[in-house]
């Protein structure tokens, strides 16, 4: 999941090129195409079927889910798993925490990273190159080795087990700064020049003129940040311990490991997995074009 960043960043600057569809198909080409379809349909089934039977199993009884895992339609449809999620299990609390944290983190990240990216691209100040080089260096710090260090600093600062400790460290990422700087580097400065001559202050100019122009990059960063913080697990393991601060990821993970004696309970776990996936799925479908865009643009170009 860590690999999403480079893909989108990479997609951003991939060159666009058009090519023409071949109109006439020979017999051999037709067979090839048929084969291609068969392969693709087979593969697509492998990729999608697990999700479909998972949704189906979340409406089954515990026994049926275990015994008849492949069945598409539950013999007896039960909402027991969902009722438990909203009854015994504090699922709404987890969802609320995740929504709150993801929103704050996303807004903060988009704002702070575009501020820094803009400054590194356009504003002249002493130490700019050093700051930029430092961010480039930090890009390669692997996230997973930060678990212990992050815990230590939160403990030192008294932020451990607070919303602050869960949110603040995520408010800026070197990757975000980098994406924004690259973007600002690629757009012309002429409009800003005009505003500058009008005597607009730097921040006002940034806020009213530059940011609106940066919409494509902001959307990219928004998607990355929201999806990233919604699915974040490691940081929320080491930054909190109270059950009140459980997010969807940590809460649902605790359903898997399970308290002693609670057993497998596949429908319950699957229901939780389905529900926690819905928001990112919606985001994915809204911004699908944007996420996988480059190729589409090329085709139509």
């Amino acid at each position, binding site marked *: 999941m860590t690999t999403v960043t480079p893909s989108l960043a990479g997609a951003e600057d991939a060159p666009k*090129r058009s090519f023409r569809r071949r109109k006439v198909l020979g017999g051999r080409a037709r067979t090839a195409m048929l084969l291609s379809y068969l392969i693709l349909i087979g*593969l697509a089934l492998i990729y999608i079927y697990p999700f479909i039977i998972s949704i189906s199993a979340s409406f089954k009884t515990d026994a049926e889910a275990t015994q008849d895992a492949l069945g598409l339609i539950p013999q007896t449809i039960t909402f027991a798993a969902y009722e438990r999620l909203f009854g015994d299990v504090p699922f709404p609390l987890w969802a609320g925490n995740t929504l709150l944290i993801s929103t704050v983190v996303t807004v903060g990240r988009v704002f702070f990273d575009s501020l820094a990216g803009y400054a590194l691209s356009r504003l*002249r100040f002493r130490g700019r190159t050093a700051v930029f080089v430092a961010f480039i260096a930090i890009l390669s710090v692997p*996230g997973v080795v930060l678990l*212990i260090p992050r815990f230590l600093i939160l403990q030192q600062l008294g932020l451990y087990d607070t919303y602050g400790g869960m949110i603040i460290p995520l408010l800026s990422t070197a990757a975000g700064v980098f994406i924004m700087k690259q973007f600002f580097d690629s757009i012309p400065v002429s409009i800003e020049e005009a505003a500058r001559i009008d005597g607009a202050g730097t921040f006002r100019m940034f806020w009213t003129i530059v940011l609106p122009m940066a919409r494509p990059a902001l959307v990219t960063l928004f998607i990355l940040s929201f999806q990233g913080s919604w699915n974040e697990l490691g940081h929320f393991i080491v930054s909190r311990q109270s059950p009140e601060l459980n997010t*969807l990821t940590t809460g649902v993970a605790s359903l898997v490991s399970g308290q002693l004696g609670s057993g497998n309970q596949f429908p319950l776990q699957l229901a939780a*997995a389905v529900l926690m996936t819905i928001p990112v799925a919606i985001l994915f479908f809204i911004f699908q074009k944007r996420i996988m865009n480059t190729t589409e643009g090329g085709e139509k170009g």
Partner: protein
Amino acid sequence: MANTAAVRTRRGGGIRRGEARAGWLFVAPAVVITLVFLVIPIMLALWVSFSDWNGFQSPLNPRVNFVGLENYAAITVDSGLDQKNFGISVRNNLYYVLFVVPLQTIIALLLAVQVNRAVLRGRGYFRTAFYFPSVTSTVAIVIVFQFLFTASGAVNAVIGAFGIDGPDWFNDSTGVFHGLLSVVGITQPSGLLAEPGFLGISGWEWLAGPSVAMSSLIMLAIFTTSGTFMLLFLAALQSIGAEIDEAALMDGAGPARKFFSITIPMLRPTLFTVLTLGLIGSWQVFDQIYVLGGTSAGGTISTPAYLAYRSSFVDLEWGQGAAIAFILFIFIIVLTLLQRWALAERGPRRARKKAGLL
């Protein structure tokens, strides 16, 4: 860009001081967050890796002692349980990398080539299907996989239809290579292979292969990452699409030859990126292992990233946990630097070549 910026500053001399202040103000939040929550913590953890802190109160309190390389030695050279656990986790992750990286690259490329067919209808749907697993959370995917791969689960039901008795995937600690060897009657090591070797692990154990449980995680990784890498390949394929067709036309090459002697060479830079990104990512696997509890399946799914966490937070061996994290840190940084170096080498040469051709 640097040039235009320079020109601009020379022109607008009056605002320069304000600009400098604004510049620092603009980068301040990002810089402060990075310093406080990334740079300083790493320093703190570095200290812990050289200390005997047991998790009680602050690691900076005066009762904590400097112990030199003791923690590093305990996991690498001193024979004992700590060394063995580390060695096993390295072996597990090594096999994970050896299988995940090539397989996810091949599958991503296969998906991209199929989806890219110009004549294909509904390519958008296919692309969505393959990419969707990449946007869902690891926790959700692990739940789905546990459900699929349970002893009486969907996977075993499918392979059962072919008369194969499937294993209890996530709980089976048998090494795949050991399993294959036992088919030909070899179940015990002999001679040198039985002796403790590198990191205290015997050659026989090093050769175990990924356990059945780890194999399920390998499939999980391929399932979730191939969509992402497919997009990278797609972007590259689209950008070189016309060139491929022209070259193939001139050669009169058939589809197979076209793929291997034209497409693959032209995709080489993307291929390299995908391989190295996969390599770096696969050494960081943590979430899946954590959700599964980490110690199940005879310790065969533990990885260094998970072991660092567990040593610290569960076993209260903070020094060792931090030491494992730093070894992993340095290893991944070296991989990243190698990648950047190779890309930098490759970039200009490729550009030159292209220029020469034109």
